[in-house]
């Protein structure tokens, strides 16, 4: 299952990178004569109400998916990860910082995103930042916990006894041990970010409407659910497949790193 997921994600990545080379039409090209054309030739996935080619837009949508996914993952991990790690390590600072995280976490994710989005105006960067902030909070929480645990590890005591300083302990001893849980966390953020971005698009507070993203495609064609069903089915399936794949890959990664599976032989 995870392999299929991985293959799909590679396809999405390929589409994202190669979109400008392989799209049959300009995704922004308006063609009022050919509007709402059914799937077929030359419009594989049909056209939308501007007469834009849905297939080309879908390929460009892969690009946005990657942008949003990678962008919010990087933002969330970089800020949330650092806050969580430092908070756990310098516990006094942590008590203060984590309080702030608590406050942010008291806001349900989408509400926080909604308010921030309204505040910042719609743009790709802002969408990434907003979703990044939302997941930075959970990442900080998780990393806080993990770092606290790692801090109690004996090898950290051993490093202290060797005379290692703060930065050495943080970046040489703690951080490398957080890499694989961070990767798992990254895959789930990636998946959730897609759904979150699509929901923001749907509420009209996500990416700018002219950007060809799967969420926008769904949002602007929701009234065509019976008139032109292909406009909802294709982007919808693309989102579901991608989120599903990412979740699968994340699951597989989590299972493979979980020590309890390794302990199976010795543990009975």
């Amino acid at each position, binding site marked *: 299952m995870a392999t299929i997921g991985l293959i799909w994600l590679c396809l999405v990545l390929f589409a994202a990178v190669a979109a400008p080379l392989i799209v049959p039409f300009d995704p922004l090209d308006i063609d009022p004569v050919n509007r709402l054309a059914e799937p077929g030739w030359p419009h594989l996935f049909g056209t939308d109400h501007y007469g834009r080619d849905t297939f080309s837009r879908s390929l460009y949508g892969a690009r946005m998916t990657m942008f949003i996914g990678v962008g919010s993952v990087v933002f969330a991990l970089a800020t949330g990860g650092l806050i969580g790690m430092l908070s756990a390590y310098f516990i006094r600072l942590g008590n203060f910082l984590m309080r702030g995280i608590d406050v942010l976490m008291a806001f349900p994710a*989408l509400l926080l995103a909604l308010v921030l989005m309204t*505040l910042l105006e719609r743009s790709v960067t802002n969408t990434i930042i907003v979703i990044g902030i939302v997941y930075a909070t959970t990442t900080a929480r998780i990393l806080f916990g993990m770092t606290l645990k790692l801090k109690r590890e004996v090898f950290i005591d051993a490093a202290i006894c060797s005379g290692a300083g703060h930065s050495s302990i943080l970046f040489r001893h703690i951080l490398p041990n957080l890499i694989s849980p961070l990767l798992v966390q990254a895959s789930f953020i990636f998946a959730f970010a897609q759904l979150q971005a699509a929901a923001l698009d749907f509420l009209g507070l996500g990416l700018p409407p002219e950007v060809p993203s799967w*969420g926008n495609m769904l949002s602007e064609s929701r009234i065509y659910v019976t008139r032109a069903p292909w406009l909802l089915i294709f982007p919808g399936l693309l989102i579901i497949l991608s989120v599903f794949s990412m979740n699968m890959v994340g699951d597989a990664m989590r299972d493979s790193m979980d020590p309890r599976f390794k302990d199976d032989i010795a*543990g009975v």
Partner: protein
Amino acid sequence: MLAYTFKRLLALVPTLLAASVLVFLFVHLIPGDPAAILLGDSATPEDVARLSREMGLDRPIYVQYFIWLGNALQGDFGTSVFFRTPVMEVIAGGAETSILLALLTMVWIILLGIPIGVLSATRHGTWVDQLASGGAMLFASVPTFWLGLYLILIFAVWLGWFPSSGFPSIHDEGGLLNLRYLLLPSMTLAAPNAALIIRLVRASMLDVQREDHVRTARAKGLHPARVAIKHVFRNALISVAAAFGFTFAALISEAVVTETVFSLPGVGRLVVQSILRRDYPVIQGVILVIVCLYMVINLIVDLAYAWLDPRVSLK
């Protein structure tokens, strides 16, 4: 127990205060003038400025905050700019829908999530498990609004089994039967969350299954089903209970979307609409109420946690 609850409630105060500042700041940084929206398209800037002044929107922001906070502490969140009625009344109007929706959704989540999760864990590794956990993963990957649109199309428009949208109060004509309006929305809302609960129940049961005391229970010669329910599930419930706090937060988030799709007169849609209308007092009020509610739910979850797990001491 009471003392603990009181203590916890007290500890919420600083968080709430910080949250209130954030809410206030966020809301006031949003571009757009409520006076302009209120007056409509043909109003002139002079009209807008005058109304703005009348509404006190021209005062320094911190003055506005303290006035608002002072009133909020007395349970007065101000008057809706848009509806011209007290914010509390506006929120109360949406509360019925949202609470009923949440309850009904919880019923689905519990009715679907727990049995399927238990089944999946006890049949670990079989096709039943793969179907259940794969299906759960799939449902967790579907955008809520997309699912909602199709549920309306299939069950309301084509089959005509359920109403498509809206929700007349249960105090209206029709009484409790009006709950049928919430069936599709609650299913939409339940789908991803039930999926998460399935996965969680499954995962925590698998975790508990590895624990030593389960081996002890099996060594007593108990029937596997009894071991699964009384020992594995009962203990797994502890971590599942903790997840209900998160589920609730997710529910609020997704309710915003679901209520919009189904045009439910709930609090979630109220937020979106109020943001679009720049109805500051309502946005502030609703968000603050939701934050409070969320914190209280978390407190209840903690209490439930202590009730489920005798190792957790409230003292």
